[in-house]
Each structure stands twice: as structure tokens, then as C-alpha cells.
């Protein structure tokens, strides 16, 4: 199991922080892309478009982190060597949290949750880090996430919450083999 200790956020080096930050965004880019594809496959174009948009947003973010890294080379670690507070990178959208009939509102709620956890991740480092430079970089990343959180909330307000029976499918599933 991963090291999920509370103090995990204390001793990030700058490179480590950058690598973690980049991986968070890259994972998110991929996850949103996958989800967009899945929704497209199910004809849920509205949600597909949303996920697509999220993916692009995260891609921009990743680009920003690369810029921030400047000349520092960011080599990816084996997946299990990252130090995330939970099981997964904070902004890694939960693939299991989706449904082919989900509404844009639910999609945004999912995204919001992820932005929030990313924000908390960076905030914790900013707060706990003993290295000032790392601390301020984390603060910066945290603020970016705060911006995203604000957007999510804004968009959420535009979409009505789902009906009670939003996942009701009158038809039975198909057997294909």
C-alpha cells in the first residue's frame, strides 16, 4: 500500500513537487479523455463534450507546469512511487463514478470533487513544507486549482440537478457474447 501518512506533504523537493503536479494534470487529461470517449460511445454527447473540455483545461494546466519547471527535467516515477494522500492522484477522476446516463450536473460534481482534492493536496504542501520555494510553488498551484473550483461551481449552477430516476433505463442490457 501507498504511504498515506499525514506528514507525507512535508518533505517534497521542488522537483518532486513539479513531477507530482505534472502527473496530476497528465493523469487528469487522460482520464477525462477516456471518459469523454466512453460517453461519446453511449451517445451521451453533452457529458462527452464536458469531459472533453475538462481534458483540454487540464492539458493547459500541464503545459503551465512544464513552463514552471524551466530546465528542470521531470522524469516520471513508477506509478506506485508517488506520494498521494489517497489511493490515487488527487485529480484522477474516479472512472467508477460514471454512468452512461449521467447528467452534466453529475459530471461537473465529479470534476469539482477532483479539483477540490487537487487544491487540498497543494494547499497541504504549501502549508506543511519546510522549504519556502516549494511552499510558494505549491501555493501557486493551489491557486490555479482554486480558479478551477470556482469555474466548476459557476458551471454547476447552470445545470439542473438530476431527477431521482436519472439512471432509469427502461430497456434491459444487451447480451453480446
Amino acid at each position: 500500500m501507498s504511504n498515506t501518512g499525514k506528514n507525507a506533504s512535508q518533505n517534497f523537493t521542488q522537483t518532486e513537487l513539479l513531477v507530482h503536479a505534472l502527473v496530476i494534470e497528465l493523469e487528469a487529461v487522460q482520464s477525462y479523455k477516456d471518459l469523454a470517449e466512453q460517453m461519446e460511445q453511449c451517445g451521451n454527447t453533452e457529458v462527452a463534450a464536458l469531459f472533453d473540455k475538462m481534458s483540454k483545461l487540464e492539458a493547459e494546466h500541464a503545459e503551465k507546469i512544464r513552463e514552471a519547471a524551466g530546465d528542470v527535467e521531470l522524469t516520471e516515477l513508477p506509478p506506485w512511487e508517488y506520494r498521494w494522500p489517497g489511493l490515487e492522484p488527487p485529480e484522477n477522476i474516479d472512472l467508477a463514478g460514471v454512468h452512461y446516463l449521467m447528467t452534466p450536473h453529475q459530471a461537473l460534481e465529479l470534476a469539482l470533487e477532483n479539483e477540490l482534492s487537487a487544491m487540498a493536496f497543494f494547499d497541504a504542501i504549501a502549508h506543511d513544507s519546510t522549504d519556502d520555494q516549494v511552499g510558494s510553488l505549491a501555493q501557486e498551484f493551489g491557486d490555479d486549482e482554486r480558479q478551477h473550483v470556482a469555474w466548476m461551481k459557476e458551471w454547476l449552477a447552470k445545470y439542473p440537478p438530476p431527477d431521482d430516476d436519472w439512471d432509469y433505463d427502461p430497456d434491459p442490457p444487451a447480451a453480446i457474447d
Partner: protein
Amino acid sequence: MVRRMSVAAPCKLKASDYKSGTKPVWCPGCGDFHVLASLTKAIAALALVPENLAVVSGIGCSSRIPAYLNCYGFHGVHGRALPLATGLKVARPDLTVICAGGDGDGFSIGGNHLLHACRRNVDITYVVMDNEIYGMTKGQPSPTTAPDWDSELAPGGTGVSPFHPLVIALASGANFVARTFAGDVKGTTRTLAEAIGHPGFSFVQILSPCVTFRPDQREWKNKVHPPPVTFTTDPAQAARRVMTDDGFNIGVLYKGSRDIYGQAVERNAEFERDLDAEFLV
């Protein structure tokens, strides 16, 4: 016009490079998406060359996985993935061979091959995406289904107690035994990488929810927990532990060091025997 990658070339592919681009037929939310993600990450972490990797499967939702990977694949018939993988690995020991499928494929119709693959200990990794159901045929009970789970085929439940794949694997001689939860991509990735790297027959049971026929399995993410103790190298101890656990222990449970089948054979030796001579009288 032809591309030919050198086999010896260093392989620095990203996890996403191991996806084939074919769109999965899976229901959004299905645990198998996580398994696909974990597997590509594990392969990328191990820097396996796509053309030297083969993923072999049977029939079922989970068994569709080879087509979604950028590697050699074989989507065989229901329940026979392990013999396919065995033949391939024995004939082509240079390849990394992974066998994948579901609980119906692997524990019901394919149960006998599991026993004997464990026993034989060929160097393959067997990944079972266990959703305690036959997903692809619309929700019939599998060998790991709880006895009281109501379904059309078994109204009111089967009344048959689920069997313990890990214990069976241990009793049959598997060389590496682990359980993971699909939603734990990081843990699954690490365990898969370890299993693939471990010599001999490695068995990984992945709890992989079927959101369509077992929406209750969305709860699994709250139930899984790491094992109370670290893995053992004593199969009898491991078996006893697993027989008495709650089924939600995740992590590596057993690592063995048995002899690997087919490794002793010297291959591509010159043909030495004069076959004709032996019939002369």
C-alpha cells in the same frame, strides 16, 4: 512504407501508448476500465516492448481486454485462455505472456485449467477480473457469487457457497498470489508489475465491479483494506489466512519460488537424433 521497430530498442512508451485505440464495449463505470488503466501502467513501468508481449483471454466482458491493448493478443473461446497461454509461453519462452479474464471464464468453465496451470507453474501471469457474476450474458451467478444473490437463473439465490479462488490457487501450487481492487489503480498497477516480474505462475484476483448487474459492488471501494500482515512464503499459512479472511484483503498474499515449467528445455538445439536409423531392422 514499412515500419519495423528494433526489438532491442529501449522501450520508453507511456501507458497510453499501450492502448490499441479500439473502443471498449464496456459499460461506463465498469471496473474493467480501471484494470485496463492499471495494466497499461504496469506494462509501461516494466518498459515491455509491445511486440514481445502477448495477452490471451477467453470470453466475457473482461476477456475483451486484449483487443484494447497494443500488443499481441488472443481472444480465444470461453474458459480456455490458460491452455492457450500455456502453449504460447512454452513454445515461445521469449515472450511475456499475460492471461486475463473473468470469474465465470476462469473459475467456472475454466476451473480445471486454473488448477493445472497453478500446478504446472509456467511463467505466465493470470489476471482475473472478478465481479462475482457473468456480466456478458446478463447477470447469472458465478462461482464467486454469494449464495443468496437473487437472479433470474437462480431465483432466491443459488444456495451454493462461493469458492475461494486464492485458496484454490495456493493449494494447487501457484507461485505468486495477490488480490487487488480495480478502483485502486495504483495498488493494482504495482501488484500487476510485481506479478509479471515474478517467475512462474502468478495469480492476481482483481475485484472489478460490474456496475450494470451488480450496482451494489460500487460499495467495494469502502470495503477493501490492506491485509493485516505482509505476504508469506508458506502456502499452507497463506491458504489458512485467506480461508478465514473477509474477502476484501488486498495486496500480495504469497510469493513462492517453485521450479518453473519448461525452463530447463534447451531450445532450437540442432536436431541430433537420426530418426530414420531407429526403424532399421
